[in-house]
């Protein structure tokens, strides 16, 4: 239990996926204009990464390892993730239309989010068990959500300020991200 908690805090705060590992920068910069959409994207990412880390851990343990095909992990994982996102999209559309309404737009964007593949590969690299892998995936995605929602909140405030023309748009967002990364350093004392 203690190990699970350590993994969770470590992935969500200390080694924040966006601010210290630089995974998922594209949606972090692209979908962080409004708090609502940022939270929607965060929700979709939590959903997909948790399922994806469960499925990929399962496949690695019960299919790739017994057959001695560990070296195929990258190919297998990326295909599984792409298929999974499609499947989740269709499933939500049929079974849970309200959730689909809320997350639908963001789902196709997630295939190209390198955080999903990154988590799957980290799980293998650190030889996590299936449960640890799922916890790691969930916590990483929660860390992503925290970062993107805070970022969106700050960006909404920046809108009201006067930014010098050259810094408008991406540069000021990157500077904000840098300051957030410094703030997140504070968590490194936790573990």
């Amino acid at each position, binding site marked *: 239990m203690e190990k699970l908690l350590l993994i969770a805090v470590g992935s969500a705060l200390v080694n924040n996926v966006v*601010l*210290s*590992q*630089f*995974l*998922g*920068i*594209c*949606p972090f*910069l*692209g*979908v962080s204009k409004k708090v609502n959409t940022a939270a929607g994207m965060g929700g979709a990412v939590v959903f997909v990464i948790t399922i994806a880390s469960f499925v990929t851990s399962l496949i690695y343990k019960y299919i790739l390892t017994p057959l001695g095909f560990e*070296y*195929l*992990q*990258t*190919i297998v994982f*990326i*295909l599984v993730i*792409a298929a999974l996102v499609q499947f989740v999209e269709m499933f939500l559309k049929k079974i849970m239309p309200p959730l689909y309404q809320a997350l639908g737009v963001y789902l*196709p*964007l997630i*295939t*190209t*989010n*390198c955080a999903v*593949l*990154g988590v799957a*590969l*980290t799980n293998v*690299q650190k030889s996590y068990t299936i449960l640890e892998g799922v916890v790691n995936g969930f916590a990483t995605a929660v860390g992503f959500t925290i970062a993107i929602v805070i970022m969106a909140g700050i960006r909404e405030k920046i809108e009201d300020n006067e930014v010098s*023309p*050259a*810094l*408008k*748009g*991406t*540069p*000021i967002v*990157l*500077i904000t*991200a*840098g*300051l957030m*990364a*410094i703030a997140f*350093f504070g968590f490194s004392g936790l573990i």
Partner: protein
Amino acid sequence: MNKCLERLFNGLIKENPTFVLMLGMCPTLAVTTSAINGLGMGLTTTVVLVMSNMLISMLRKIIPDSVRMPAFIVVVASFVTMVQFLLEGFIPSLYDSLGLYIPLIVVNCIILGRAESYASKNPVLPSIFDGIGMGLGFTVGLTSIGIVREILGAGQAFGKQIMPASFEPITIFILAPGAFFVLAGLTAIQNKVKLEAAKKGKKVETKAGCGEGCGNCTNCGGGK
């Protein structure tokens, strides 16, 4: 042959993936802690890009349109896996310092983007040169960011001390926040240049990139 040279120029300068298109931001931020890492990552990506462009261009008439994305992903992922093992075997130091980011080349927008927008529509030779041009452009981008960060953060370039001993290294530049600050400075300079050009009445094409919004990421990666 002219067309091939044009592709090289296009990748290095006109459509430089790092500075102009702003693609592949994850590795750009993550591995540029030193010049040598940036160079290694750039060259690794170049190799994958050239090989995948070549194979996809060869297969462009065989791959059915409806399954082209999964097919491209399989091709790219196979080359990435091969390169990963070659690095592990022959340059273990680079393999260790790049770590997780080597398999993540698979989801680099640049590679699928070139496969989709160039290699799947053009003959083999120009596609190879397109890959070389784009790859070298990416390498130049990563290496120069790496040099800036290494000089500011450690007073070195390619591991050699170049700043005088009295220079106090600004360690934050080789840590995570430094990556964001350097990239912010870079895009600000680029904006400045664009604004100046716009003032002079020149029309500046705005190219879509990852920084501009995620819809564009899907264009190059998801293909939907």
